[in-house]
């Protein structure tokens, strides 16, 4: 009896073993062979295609959908909206939509879908970068006309540019479950973009296939699988070991990018590394509200203290050191002046710190986000550079939760941050980083001063290009004098791919795979 029990239990366990291993093997059907052209790319964020309270990730939106307009350079260009009328000095915007566009499920694109999209943004208060808090009401005037009423006093050019924000990508009301409820979770995200989502497994992968109803040129590839690999080093390993064809940054600052200090190694190993500079500067931000950082001299001292060539050396020259000025060449209306705002000068820095009363005993901490290996390295470098001026900086490598806690509580001195962003956020980011009244400034502000505000608001608000240009110049000069932080390098978006992946293109600052094909070796 007991023996029988033993035998059965052992048998059961072994059957369990076998079943599970078989199940494991069978779960994912092995994909087909060479004939269809497929691309697998590694990406550091989950695309969140079944988002409960959001609209999905940037990569997803760019692949899957289009916006009403696009921001190209300093001009707003038509996309899903053929044209628009500005009334009441910009307080009312009437969009005339394209009539020949269909969603990927074959239903026509109409003004209702636009309304649905913006209702969802409003419902979940997705104010950041979308500027929807400035929108008073939305009115559908027919299948192809929609009117946005802007709150009085909130109108401006920046509101128009925000229609190009990726979160404002238009989705069909069929995207949610139940359909048509803007507050429901996304179940079947349907857009008008070149790709549609064929399969999505949370925290694992998203599969895109060409959208049969796309109004533009159809993608050449048969399928793109976007694998979610959160750790930066793991993504690098994935391409090194050949399990993905490319690693992409869909970069808008912050996290989930290919570690820049790995780019050289990857290139040496025979991968193609594609770069596109962004209108973005990575900066050393300081907690300017509190002493000693409220002293402009100290901030200027910091600017003298950091050797940007060393910073660039960390990335093997892949990124341009921000030696001349705070804003990237790609920022709106930047003019090459040739002079360096704050040339590297240790003595000057030490002198200024001394005058401000900073010594080696002054407690200064530098926060770094643990999940970005090269940010940690960068901070280690800055710590050692500041040590040369006699400052003793304590490096705190924090996970994201604690990092944002400390940031919110103002319990920090220095951190690495970034100003500017992808092309489509050129205006919203500048306002969000410097204007304390903007929706983004609370969580994502960088530096502000009453001196900056008048020129900044005009610079992003005016519909007149010349007026914008003039005010940007004033703003840049003020920003230089106030030295809100230390510009370190001008950032870029990278794609690392195998050599046989051809034709990866950048549209504005986003990598696109629409015309990619895989060359036979």
């Amino acid at each position, binding site marked *: 009896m007991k023996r029988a029990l033993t035998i059965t239990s052992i048998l059961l366990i072994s059957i369990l073993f076998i079943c599970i291993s078989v199940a494991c093997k069978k779960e994912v059907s092995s994909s087909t062979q060479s004939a269809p052209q497929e691309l697998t790319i590694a990406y550091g964020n989950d695309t969140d295609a079944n988002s409960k309270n959001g609209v999905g990730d940037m990569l997803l939106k760019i692949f899957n959908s289009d916006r009403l307009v696009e921001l190209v350079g300093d001009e707003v260009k038509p996309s899903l909206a053929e044209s628009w009328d500005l009334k009441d000095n910009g307080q009312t915007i009437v969009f005339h939509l394209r009539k020949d566009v269909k969603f990927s499920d074959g239903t026509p694109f109409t003004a209702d879908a636009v309304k649905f999209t913006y209702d969802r943004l409003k419902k979940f208060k997705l104010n950041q970068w979308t500027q929807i808090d400035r929108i008073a009401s939305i009115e559908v005037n027919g299948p192809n006309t929609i009117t946005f009423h802007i709150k009085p006093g909130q109108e401006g050019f920046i509101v128009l540019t925000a229609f190009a924000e990726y979160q404002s990508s238009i989705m069909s009301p069929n995207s949610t479950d139940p359909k048509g409820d803007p507050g429901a979770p996304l179940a079947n995200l349907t857009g008008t973009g070149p790709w549609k989502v064929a399969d999505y497994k949370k925290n694992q992968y998203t599969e895109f296939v060409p959208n049969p109803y796309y109004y533009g040129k159809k993608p050449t590839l048969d399928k793109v699988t976007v694998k979610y690999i959160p750790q930066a080093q793991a993504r690098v390993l994935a391409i*090194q070991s050949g399990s993905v064809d490319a690693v992409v940054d869909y970069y808008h600052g912050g996290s989930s990018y290919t570690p820049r200090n790995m780019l050289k190694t990857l290139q040496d190993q025979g991968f193609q590394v594609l770069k596109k500079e962004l209108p973005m500067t990575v900066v050393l931000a300081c907690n300017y509200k509190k002493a000693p950082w409220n002293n402009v001299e100290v901030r200027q001292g910091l600017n003298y203290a950091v050797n940007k060539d060393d910073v660039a050396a960390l990335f093997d020259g892949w990124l341009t050191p921000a030696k001349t000025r705070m804003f990237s060449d790609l920022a709106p209306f930047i003019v090459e002046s040739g002079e360096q705002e704050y040339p590297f000068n240790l003595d000057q820095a030490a002198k200024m710190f001394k005058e401000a009363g900073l010594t080696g005993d002054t407690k200064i901490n530098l926060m770094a986000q643990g999940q970005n*290996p090269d940010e940690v390295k960068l901070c280690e470098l800055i710590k050692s550079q500041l040590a040369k001026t006699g400052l003793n900086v304590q490096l705190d490598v924090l996970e994201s939760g604690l990092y944002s806690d400390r940031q919110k509580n103002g319990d920090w001195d220095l951190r690495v941050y970034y100003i500017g962003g992808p092309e489509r956020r050129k205006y919203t980011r500048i306002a969000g980083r410097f204007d304390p009244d903007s929706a983004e400034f609370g969580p994502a502000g960088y530096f502000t001063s009453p001196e900056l505000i008048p020129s900044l608001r005009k610079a992003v608000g005016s519909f007149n290009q010349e007026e914008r240009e003039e005010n940007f110049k004033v703003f840049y000069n003020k920003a230089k004098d106030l030295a809100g932080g230390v510009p370190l390098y001008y950032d870029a978006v990278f794609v690392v791919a195998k050599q046989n992946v051809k034709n990866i293109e950048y549209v504005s600052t986003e990598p696109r795979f629409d015309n990619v094909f895989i060359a036979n070796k």
Partner: protein
Amino acid sequence: MPKTVRIGAIIIICLLVVACLAPVLTPVNPLAVNMGEKLQGLSRQHPMGTDQLGRDVLSRVLYGARTSMAASFSVVIICLAVGIAIGCIAGFYGGVIDELLMRLVDIMMAFPPFILPIAITGILGPSLTNIIIALALTSWVGYARMVRSSVLTLKHLDFVAAAKAMGSSRSRIIREHIVPNAVHPLVVYAAFNASHTILAISGLSFIGLGAQPPTPEWGNMLSEACSFMGSSPYLFIFPGLMIMLTVLAFNLLGDGLRDYLDPRLGTEVDL
């Protein structure tokens, strides 16, 4: 004394010496960044090369010994202190106190390995101190159980009875008789615990929950070296070897001491 014990002890003593004398032994400050010497291979100036910030790997490896030894010894010492105290109290006083303390031990044993350390560091925030606290919190249990069972067997032995008859106070009996006699198994356990602690700390540091940069710690250095495995293998060979060597030393010591101190193995011959 078996050879394994001697080898293990010698390695550990060497590591301790290195840990204590790290500032004297190292040619360069382990934190000194020099971007001009980034990722240089082995050279006379940098016998183990430099890392991606141009820091001397040899100095960092030696300072790493300091971090690892300090951390593992702190864990072991905390556990020893707590374990001996609780084990003695439970074993000697018995009754309700014993019952309560042993239930506490049961509860601590109900947590699967690694969960509590990771959860605690997750909540308190990752740092070497927090990892030490978390590991100590989970590993004192073994010591307490061991001490308790030693105390229980020793309690009934003649010399304790004799000491009692001679009017020794309880605390004196514990101090003079029970503690020294319970020491043998404890030493073996502590050696293995130290090796586990080093593995755990380096592992947790490797995934970013332990010692934080720029602290030189082997697990940390390994996770940095991950990216440069192909181009600069020395970045992971040296810290990796150091972890292995240290763990091996403690394992040798534990194995050897167990064979040496375990009376059962001495009487292989039954006549």
